[in-house]
C-alpha cells in the first residue's frame, strides 16, 4: 500500500515537477510572512511576556513562565457561554439571511438588459464596502434616531440602537447593507462567464426567465457558491468585531456582545505588553475555524462533488 502510494507520488512528481516553480513564490511568501510569525502562537501559553526589556524576542520568550491561564480565563467566566452563544447566533443569522442575497442580487444585475443601468447598479451597490464601520454606524444612528427620518416616516418611536431585542436584526441588516453588493461581484463575474448558447437553447425550448435562472444560471455558478459558503462557514466564530464594536452600547450587550468584543473589553485596560489573552483567543478561533472548514468541505464534496481542495 505504502509502496504504491510512493510510486504514484513519484510518478506525479516526475510528470508535474515543472509546475513546482509556479507555486513556489506563493509558498515562500506564505512561509516568510505567515508561518514564521505563527511561532508566536506559543505566546498564548506564556504569562506576562516582556518583549521590551530583553535583547531579542527569544530571550523574552524563554524568560516568561508557561501558563494555561489565558485559556482558563476564556472559559471560566460564567458569562462567556452567553457570549459564545451570541457569536454563533449572530453568525448563523448572517449566513442564513445574508449568504443567498448576493447571489440573488448578482442574478438581478446580470438580467438587467440595459448595460449602462447594469454597470451603474454594480457600482452603486459596491460603494458601501468602502466606508468604515465607524462612519456607517454614525450615519445609521442619525437615520434611525428617535426623532430621525425613519421613525418620522413610519410614525413610530423605536429606539433602534438601544433596544436589546432588535439589536441582532439591526446587526444583520447593516452588515447586509455594507457587504451584499461587494460579495455579489464574484457571482456577477461568474454568471457573465456562462456560455450564452445555453440560454439561447433554453429560450428555444421556451423556458421562461425563472426557469432559465433556476436550471442554467444557478447550476453553472454552484461551484462558486459552494466555495464561498465553505469559506464563510470558516468564519463562524467571527461575527464581525469592527461592526459590533461600533454599534454596541450598555443596554444591548446582553444580546449583542460577542467573543471578540468581550475579549477586547476584558483586556482593555491591560498593559499593552500582555499579548497572551488575545493570542489565546485567536488560536482557539483558528482551531474551530479549521475544523469547520474541513468538515464543510467534506460534506460539500460528498454532496455536490465540489470543494475548496
Amino acid at each position: 500500500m505504502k509502496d504504491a502510494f510512493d510510486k504514484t507520488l513519484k510518478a506525479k512528481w516526475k510528470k508535474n515537477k515543472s509546475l513546482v516553480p509556479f507555486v513556489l513564490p506563493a509558498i515562500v511568501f506564505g512561509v516568510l510572512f505567515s508561518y514564521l510569525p505563527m511561532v508566536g502562537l506559543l505566546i498564548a501559553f506564556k504569562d506576562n511576556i516582556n518583549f521590551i526589556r530583553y535583547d531579542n524576542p527569544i530571550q523574552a520568550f524563554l524568560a516568561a513562565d508557561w501558563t494555561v491561564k489565558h485559556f482558563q480565563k476564556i472559559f471560566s467566566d460564567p458569562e462567556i457561554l452567553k457570549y459564545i452563544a451570541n457569536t454563533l447566533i449572530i453568525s448563523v443569522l448572517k449566513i442564513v439571511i445574508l449568504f443567498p442575497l448576493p447571489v440573488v442580487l448578482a442574478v438581478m444585475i446580470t438580467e438587467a438588459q440595459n448595460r449602462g443601468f447594469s454597470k451603474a447598479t454594480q457600482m452603486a451597490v459596491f460603494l458601501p464596502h468602502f466606508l468604515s464601520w465607524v462612519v456607517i454606524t454614525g450615519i445609521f444612528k442619525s437615520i434611525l434616531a428617535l426623532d430621525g427620518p425613519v421613525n418620522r416616516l413610519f410614525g413610530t418611536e423605536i429606539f433602534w440602537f438601544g433596544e436589546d431585542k432588535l439589536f441582532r436584526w439591526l446587526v444583520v441588516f447593516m452588515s447586509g447593507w455594507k457587504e451584499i453588493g461587494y460579495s455579489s461581484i464574484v457571482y456577477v463575474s461568474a454568471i457573465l462567464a456562462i456560455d450564452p448558447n445555453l440560454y439561447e437553447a433554453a429560450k428555444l425550448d421556451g423556458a421562461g426567465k425563472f426557469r432559465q435562472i433556476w436550471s442554467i444560471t444557478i447550476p453553472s455558478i454552484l461551484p462558486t457558491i459552494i466555495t464561498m459558503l465553505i469559506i464563510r462557514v470558516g468564519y463562524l466564530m467571527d461575527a464581525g468585531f469592527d461592526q459590533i464594536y461600533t454599534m454596541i452600547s450598555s443596554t444591548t450587550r446582553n444580546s449583542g456582545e460577542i467573543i471578540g468584543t468581550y475579549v477586547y473589553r476584558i483586556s482593555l485596560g491591560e498593559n499593552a505588553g500582555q499579548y497572551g489573552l488575545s493570542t489565546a483567543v485567536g488560536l482557539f478561533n483558528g482551531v474551530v475555524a479549521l475544523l469547520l472548514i474541513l468538515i464543510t468541505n467534506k460534506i460539500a464534496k460528498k454532496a455536490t462533488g465540489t470543494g475548496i481542495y
Partner: protein
Amino acid sequence: MKKSLCVFSVVMAGALLCPLAACKKEASTYDPDIDLSNKPDLRVLMPYSGYDIATVNADPNAAVVEKVTGYKVNYEQLPTDATSTLNTLFMNRDSYNAIKLTSAQFASLVAEDALLDLSDAIEDFGPVIKEVISEESWGTVTVDGKIYGIPERSSSDNIQYPIVFRQDWMDELNLTMPETPEELKTVLQKFKDEKNVIPLTFDRFTPIVWSIAAGFGIYADWQEYEIDGKTKVCYYMETPNYKEYVDYMADLYDKGLIDQEVSTLESSQSQLKFTSEKAAAISTSIWSVSSLVKGLVTDPVLQNTTQENMFGYLRALKYNGVEHANRLGGCPYVTVVPFYMGAQAGYVIDWINSKLTDAEESHNFREIVLGEENTHFTYNSRTDEYNPVNEHFAEKDTASYYLTGSNEKVYTKYWLARVKKQPELERAWGLMMKNADTVGVYDALDFAPPLTDYASVRGTIETYAQDQFFVMLRTDKGTSKLADYLKKWNSDGGELASKEINKWFENK
C-alpha cells in the same frame, strides 16, 4: 520541495536562536558626565497633533522653545492608535531622547519596566524642575522612590462638569437654579411640559453626572468614605449613596426627563441636540461652552460679540445643605526617557529645566505659553492679570502641545489669558471656580503613583460600571439587581484594584 522547506525552517530557527547566550534583562544606565556646552540635537516623540509633522516642526512655538533653550529639537509624532507603535518602537530600540506620554500609556510602560529612572538626572541637571513641580505631582510618577518621568499638571485644577441650562428658557418659565434633587426634578418637568423639549441630555460615557451625583454625596470615582470608623477608598459603585443616585436617575429617565437615547449618544451628538434647540440642558465640560455658544448663534456676524448670560450653570446640587463638586487633579501627560537612552538623559533634563525656568532674568516658560509681552499678551500689574492680544494670540493656540512638564507656580495665571478669548467661557470658568478650594473634592487617585493591578483592570471595571448604570437606568428601571452587578464588578477586577488602592492609601 518539502525538504527545502525543512532546511529553510532549520536555518531560520538557527538564525533566531543564535544570540541565546543568557536571558538577562538589558541594562539601563544613566550617564552623568556630559558636556552641557555642546548641546546635541534632541529627538522627541510627541502625541498625535492633528497636523503633518513638518507643520509641527515649523510651528512658531517650536521655534520659541528652541530659542529659549538653545536645543535644536526634531519632533516626531505617534499615530492616534498608539499602543502597538509604542511597544514596537521600544522593541526596536528607536533612539528617541524623550517621549511625551498620556498618563495611561505611562502606567503601562512603567509596568513593563521600559523607562529610565530619572531621579539622579533631575538631581544633577534639574534644579528648576525640582522647584516648580509640586510634591503632589511628583507622586504620580514615583514608584519605590524612583522617578520615571516629568509630570505635566494641567493649567489649573478645574471644577469643570456643570449642567448647562438655556438661561433664556429658564427666565421665560420663571425658573431659578435648582439646589436639591427635588428642585431639579421640578425644573426638568417644567421644561418638558412647557417647552416640549428633551429636558436634559448627556452622553453615553457619563454614568455619573457630577453635578447631580453631588446631591447624593458622590464627588469622585474613587472617594474616601468612613466605613465602620475606618477610612476606606471606594469606587462610586460600591458606595451606599450610589443606590439612591441611580434610583433617582432611573425615575427621571422613566418620566422622560432625561434624553431617552442617552445610552447611545456620542458627546458631539448630545451637543448637537442642545445647539439645535431640542434639549434644554446638557451635562458637559465647560470647555465646550464656546462651541455651544457658536452652535446656537449661527449668525456669523454675532460670533465674536458678547453673548450676555446666555447660559445658566449648575455646578453641583447640595448634599445635606452643603455644596461640594468634583475637581479635576493629577497630571494628564508625562515626559519620559526610554530605558536604553540613558547616555543623553542629562541633556533632556537640562532642556526641560530651561523650558520651565521663569524668573526675572529669563521668562522662558512664559514665552512658551504666552509669547511676547505686548505682542501676544498684555500684563495688568494692578490686578496681576494677563490678557490676550487677540490678533496675535492665535499663534499661541498650539503652545500647550510643546510643553513637557509645566511650571505649576505660574501656569494657572498664564492660562487664564486663554479662557479670556471667549467671554461666555470666562464667565463659566469664573462661576465654576468660585471658592474652588472649599467646594472642590479631588479623586482619591488623582495624585496616586502608577498602580500596576489597578492599571491592568481599570478599563474593564470602568466600562462595566458604566454599562450597568445604563442597564439600570433603562432596562431594570432601578437598583433591583445592583447587588449582582457589584459582585460581578468585584470578580472582574474591582476587588483586586480596591485592595491595591487601599493598601497604597493606608501607607500614604
